[in-house]
């Protein structure tokens, strides 16, 4: 039974791919082909293939050390890769410096530890890149920052410093800061795993809203409720490979791979 549902998932994926192929001008948001990466002699990513259409939401999960962070960091050039290709909206990452910078500018990243700039106010955190990278004037940048701070529901904290905010508030500022650059793709690396349980909800709510607005998202998370509700596909990684890729309903009810099954059962306990 489980193999037949996996077949359905594969068919779904196939249909999705062929849907995109109908219009050759339509690029995929992300297209990863045979991606390999080594840390020294350690083979971290062992031939990753992943396609992400515009507007779709991918949740990546898997045991610690399986290469989830490494994969997501390759996607915005924080890590270099040795073999394979990454295409962001039709631009090959790492081929041409200018093109790569442009492609990367359209990618927002949210980190597990927020990584807000501690010496800058919430507002200045949001406007720094707008002013220095996008070359926006101060008033214009601040108006845009306020817009996104409202979107993550903390406009009243604009003049505080990061250390004066709770973890959940800091992570929402980090999301607003990334959104300010109008990214077409948002990457999240375990955005809620450094948070106290009571703050996880407020961050997930913001992310869910973002998904409903149609943002393309790739999200490493172990929040399975979020995956069920928001994800178009769940990708399960283990030891540097994608072991299983399926729609959430299939992945949670009938994971085909024993390691995925094993992983899910450890999450439940």
């Amino acid at each position: 039974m489980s193999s037949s549902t996996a077949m359905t998932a594969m068919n779904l994926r196939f249909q999705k791919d062929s849907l995109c192929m109908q219009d050759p001008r339509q690029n995929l948001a992300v297209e990863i082909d045979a991606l390999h990466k080594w840390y020294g002699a350690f083979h971290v990513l062992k031939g990753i293939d992943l396609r992400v259409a515009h507007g779709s939401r991918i949740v990546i999960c898997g045991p610690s050390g399986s290469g989830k962070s490494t994969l997501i960091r390759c996607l915005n050039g924080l890590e270099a890769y040795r073999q394979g290709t990454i295409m962001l909206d039709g631009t090959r990452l790492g081929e041409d410096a200018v093109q790569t910078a442009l492609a990367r500018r359209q990618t927002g990243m949210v980190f597990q530890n927020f990584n807000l700039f501690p010496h800058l106010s919430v507002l200045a955190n949001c406007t720094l890149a707008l002013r220095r990278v996008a070359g926006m004037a101060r008033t214009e940048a601040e108006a845009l920052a306020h817009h996104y701070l409202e979107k993550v529901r903390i406009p009243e904290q604009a003049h505080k410093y990061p250390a004066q905010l709770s973890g959940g508030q800091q992570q929402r500022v980090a999301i607003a800061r990334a959104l300010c650059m109008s990214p077409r793709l948002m990457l999240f690396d375990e955005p809620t795993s450094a948070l106290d349980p009571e703050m996880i909800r407020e961050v997930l709510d913001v992310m869910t809203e973002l998904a409903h607005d149609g943002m393309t998202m790739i999200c490493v998370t172990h929040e399975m409720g979020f995956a069920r509700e928001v994800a178009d596909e769940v990708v399960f990684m283990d030891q540097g490979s994608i072991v299983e890729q399926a729609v959430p309903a299939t992945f949670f009810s009938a994971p085909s791979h024993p390691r995925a099954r094993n992983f899910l059962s450890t999450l439940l306990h």
Partner: protein
Amino acid sequence: MGFDLDFALASVPAILGAIGMTLLVAVTSCFGAAALGFCLEIVRRRGGFVGLGVRFLIDFIRATPVLVWLYCLYFILPFYGVRLSALTVGIAGLSLYYSGYLAEVFKAGIDAIAKGQQEAARALGISRLDTVVFVIAPQMLRNIAAPMGNYFVSILKATPYLAVLAVPEMLGAAFDIASDTYRYAEPLTVAGIIFLALALAISQGVKWLEKRLAVSTVR
């Protein structure tokens, strides 16, 4: 021949007259050493062949007496057609010498900044230079205000070395009085007290700066 207070007070104006030169040398050398030391550290961090060269240069600078630098710049450069005024050589020498020490201070200050800060800046598309200026430098200053202040005091205390180049700074002025009158205790004591006052002013300034920088990070 005891300590003559009246003579000491009488020598104050002449010595204070040279305070401008001492301050000029000290302040420009502080800025020069800080700017140069920061650049050295940034280049050293980038590693590679150039970084390795700079690492060696920093060690070399620190291992050489400051007087050697002053003599070299003043007496050797003219052989190569570079003729600098005594004041310029003095400021350049002190800047160069202390840049080696400040580079080490900056290194500690930058090492203490979380790695995620640079990654966040890169992920936002902020250029390397802007990252250094707007993300790294302000946080580094917050980490190192106190040790940096100590080196600023050291630079102030090193200004009398410029006497060897006949730059008319404060200790030189005190010595002029001494050799004219054969009374050493009074003018040298006066100069010492003024140096002490300046050093205290610098450390107070650093304390104030530290407090101001800390306001932006309530921890």
